[in-house]
């Protein structure tokens, strides 16, 4: 028997079809699924929150920090999720080499669906889903939050305005989140990039 290789499949396979949707005219929103190369949960060991945060430069409260290709998003007291957009082996091993006494790491690869919501109407579309203040003065670059979108638990963060909003949920809710986000965006017209 020929050697079988199992191919990974996104939770949103078949759902994002490149094209223009919603209201006609210049699209107000660009939507995309981001497929991080790695997702890792980092949990501080008892009493190590501050030491871990300062060692890695992690946000002490809701927010995000980008270090090269890895973005660390605060997900709860003493907890972060690292989204790896294709980091170098060196950067990755640096993370893996964190002493056990500091933190517990758990591989969450494939366990999150991550959407990117960008464009001039992004805030207005997301305001329909997120019960948080998205005004630039309250949610600007490096902001983040653990909240709910259409009853779905999500992490949302904004590395910077150019990168757009990132919104992550449990994989199993991915289709529901896509449905909610694309539905909220339809009023402004949206584009799914090829």
């Amino acid at each position, binding site marked *: 028997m020929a050697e079988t290789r199992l*191919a*990974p499949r*996104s939770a949103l*396979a078949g759902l994002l079809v490149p094209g223009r949707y919603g209201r006609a005219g210049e699209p107000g929103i660009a939507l995309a699924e981001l497929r991080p190369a790695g997702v890792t949960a980092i949990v501080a060991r008892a009493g190590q929150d501050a030491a871990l945060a300062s060692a890695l430069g992690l946000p002490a409260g809701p927010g995000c920090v980008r270090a090269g290709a890895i973005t660390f998003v605060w997900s709860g007291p003493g907890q972060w999720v690292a989204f790896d957009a294709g980091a170098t082996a060196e950067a990755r091993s640096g993370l893996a080499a964190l002493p056990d006494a500091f933190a517990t790491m758990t591989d969450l690869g*494939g366990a999150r669906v991550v959407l990117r919501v960008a464009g001039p109407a992004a805030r207005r579309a997301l305001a329909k889903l997120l*019960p948080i203040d998205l005004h630039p003065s309250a949610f600007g670059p490096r902001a983040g939050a653990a909240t709910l979108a259409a009853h779905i638990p999500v992490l949302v963060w904004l590395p910077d305005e150019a990168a757009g909003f990132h919104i992550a949920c449990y*994989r199993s809710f991915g289709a529901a989140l896509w449905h909610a986000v694309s539905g909220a965006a339809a009023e402004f017209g949206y584009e799914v990039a090829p």
Partner: protein
Amino acid sequence: MNGAQPMRLAAGGAIDRARPLGFTFDGRAYAGFAGDTLASALLANGVRLMGRSFKYHRPRGPWGAGAEEPNALVELRTGARREPNTRATVIELFDGLVAQSQNRWPSLRFDVMGVNGLFAPIFTAGFYYKTFMWPASFWEKLYEPIIRRAAGLGRAAREPDPDEYDRSHLFCDVLVIGAGPAGLAAALAAARSGARVVLADEDVRPGGRLLAEAHEIDSAPGVLWAERVAGELAGMANVTLLARTTVFGLFDHGAFAALERVADHLPEPAPHQVRQRLWRIQARRAVLAAGAIERPIAFGGNDRPGVMAASAVRAYLHRWAVLPGRRGVVFTASDDGWRTADALLAAGASVEAVVDARPDPPAALMRAAGARGLRVHAGAQVVGTHGHLGLQAVDVRLPSGSSLGIDCDLLAVSGGWNPTVHLASHQGAKPVWDAALAAFVPGRLPEGLAVAGAAAGRFTLAACLADGAEAGRAAASACGHAAAPLVLPRAADEPAAQAAFFHVPGPRGKAFVDFQNDVTVKDVKQAAREGYRSVEHAKRYTTLGMATDQGKTANVVGLAILAEATGRSIEATGTTIFRPPYTPVAMGAIVGHHRGRDFRPARHTPMHDWAAENGASFVEVGPWYRAQWYARPGEKGWRDSVDREAEAVRRAVGVCDVSTLGKIEVVGRDAAAFLDFVYTSMISTLPVGRVRYGLMLREDGLVFDDGTCARMGPERFFITTTTANAGRVMQHLEFCHQVLKPAMDVSFLSVTDRWAQVSIAGPRSRDLVAMLVGPGVDLSTAAFPHMSAAEVEVCGQVPARLFRLSFSGEMAYELGVPADFGDALMRHIMQVGAPLGLVPYGTEALSVLRVEKGHPAGGELNGHTTARDLGLGGMMSRKKDYVGRRLAERPAFTDPARPILVGFKPVDRGQELKSGAHFLDPGAEARIENDQGYMTSVAFSPALGHSIGLGLLARGRERIGQQVRAYDPVRNRDIVVEVCHPVFIDPEGDRTRG
């Protein structure tokens, strides 16, 4: 005059005469202009009869010109978009609008049910309670349908609503409610400080009363000032203007709810446009500048079309250039009412008389009226009206007591203004009666809310502007934005005194207090006589202040009459409770897009699409969709599929998607000790690479959840929960850690979505797993016995976790791979397993297998059972403390007579068992005292060829082999069953361990 619109003035008004609009009312075509409401357009066409009243079917026309309208309710649109009880006074006219009058048959002009008026004596206060007391059985079938047909308002659409609604969130420093003079001044003062401001108004245009009055600001029409301010605000980045938006509720901690009518003014929403949007506005400070509503005066025949609020008359004249009548009479108890006479004269109408109920109106008003040649009757009252379907004359009682008839087609009534205090009272604070003002004003205010302008009882324009500007400045300042005081525009303090005059004694004919509910002065007095002294009781007894307008015009008049009838002051009588919403809100807007399939978000496993392709029927388990069975061609029903799947597992091998089981990674130095604390059994002794079945109790000693606990490393455990309880278990663990054991080094991470997990069960399961994990993994029972765990690779490529676990009683494994590989794994398993006779099986077959094996599941873990009840008493460790241990030892929980888990078979094997049946001793009467327990789960066992069940039976274990009745009065069944051991298949467990 305009030919097609006989009552339209030749000039003026905020209408666009270049944009004529066609519409129909009761099938007849009319024309209006852009900027009209349905009511203004109908009045322009000379139509003032717009509806029939609720109880007596009396002809009614518009009383007001705004959201408080009690009378002019119509059905708007047709088909699926038909909407009952819409107020003609706030419906923006659009081309092609279709409206119908309601509550009349066969036509609005001739309504058969108008005879209800003749039976008025039986429709008085409390008639529901008095008339239909007996016999009770007649209520639902006879009385209610008849009453509903006779009384009632419009008809809802029968089809599903085709439109979309959504919800959104807004955050701001200062929310200003109302864009009248006070609101605009408040918003401008706050916005210029740099504060984030939201200004919401229910109207399409800013200006509030300025739109309806001839007031001047800075020597120019007030509307121009309103437009200029709104323009400045619109240009500011820190301001959000919400037109057509009603802030309808004030909630805790500065949260407000508002409804934006995004597309109600269009025939139908544009593509991808929502019909309405619900806003949740979180404001640090808010200024309520909601204005005031003019109150009616109750006198005989005060509901006849042509009797109108004086403020509404001025609104129709000024804003819509519509003449509500050609011969007017003004009946007033306020200075404000007098201005209506000037407005009518300016529009070319005649004013037959000004009747002021006050004995000595201000001399200045009298002088000015004299200069215009107006006939004034001070200290006089309108006691009755005449006219068939509309006003033709009024009867005036002069101070001398003599009566005077005056022909007229319009009676403008001003009973004074009631500040719109609703939102200030939504948190329960009652408004207070201001005797000098003769009005209720806001009392103790909710945190962060200020009230400005007419809503605070400051009725003159200059006072509104000053009050609003200061409220806006103070609100911004409280948010840390210093604002310079606004330079106030010039405006007048016009005469604004009003009297507490609510009803005319000795009315001729019915004197209505609540137009919408047909409640009269007599009804309120009768309620008082019958002992309904509390304003809340009187409301319920008479229906005063109920229905769609919630008594916006009626309440204060009603309670004033109640106060008089009970010999108390208005203050002592008080108001009823104000509750959101301020105006009606469609359920669709509250629901937003969470309807149908989107009622709540669904969760799908990584193998969902594969299952759907392979004939799966899905069952909802919490938010999850699980494959229930996989139908094959030729199978006639679900039982065929389920029997086949269960048999295949017992005979060969089956695969089941168990990804939905809750999975939690428990890590830390104290992880083992913590798990000892939450599970009944000892976990810390578990070696790495081994699995233990675990039971968690609630603090009250009842069983909470069950699952497995695998030790993946010295400080790392992987535990599973039932699908339904995953979230609750996570909360429970966090609670136990954070509150009960905060010093422990342990953390919890939900990894449910990390692993696509399958159960592979059946005598050939080991062969199949071997093909997946390769020859490098020794799967022999010696090397990898039942209850083992290992990290492996699938296809030499994908990292996986392998467990030897069994729920079915067969030799079985669970294999988890990273979720992205779940779909490919399932397809691969199906391919390599085919030669072994592999079938996929769903939750239904899983349930058959577990009932055959006597495993407790949802039916048994029902929140009423202890570990002992489930035959799991042996899992309750005596060597350690754990959550629930102490209360599990309560005498009632250790009573040997408690119902305990056993199995059941029908004595007549052809009979079918039903869960929910109660057990009785043979021959015992079916009474609750004789209850011996109940059936918790049943299945048809293909292996045994008959129905089997699990249940809780008193002293069950001692009764194995005996017979009891399974009595099921709900389904009318009563059969004899045999008590047996709960494990029907392989009680020794050889197959599992083999």
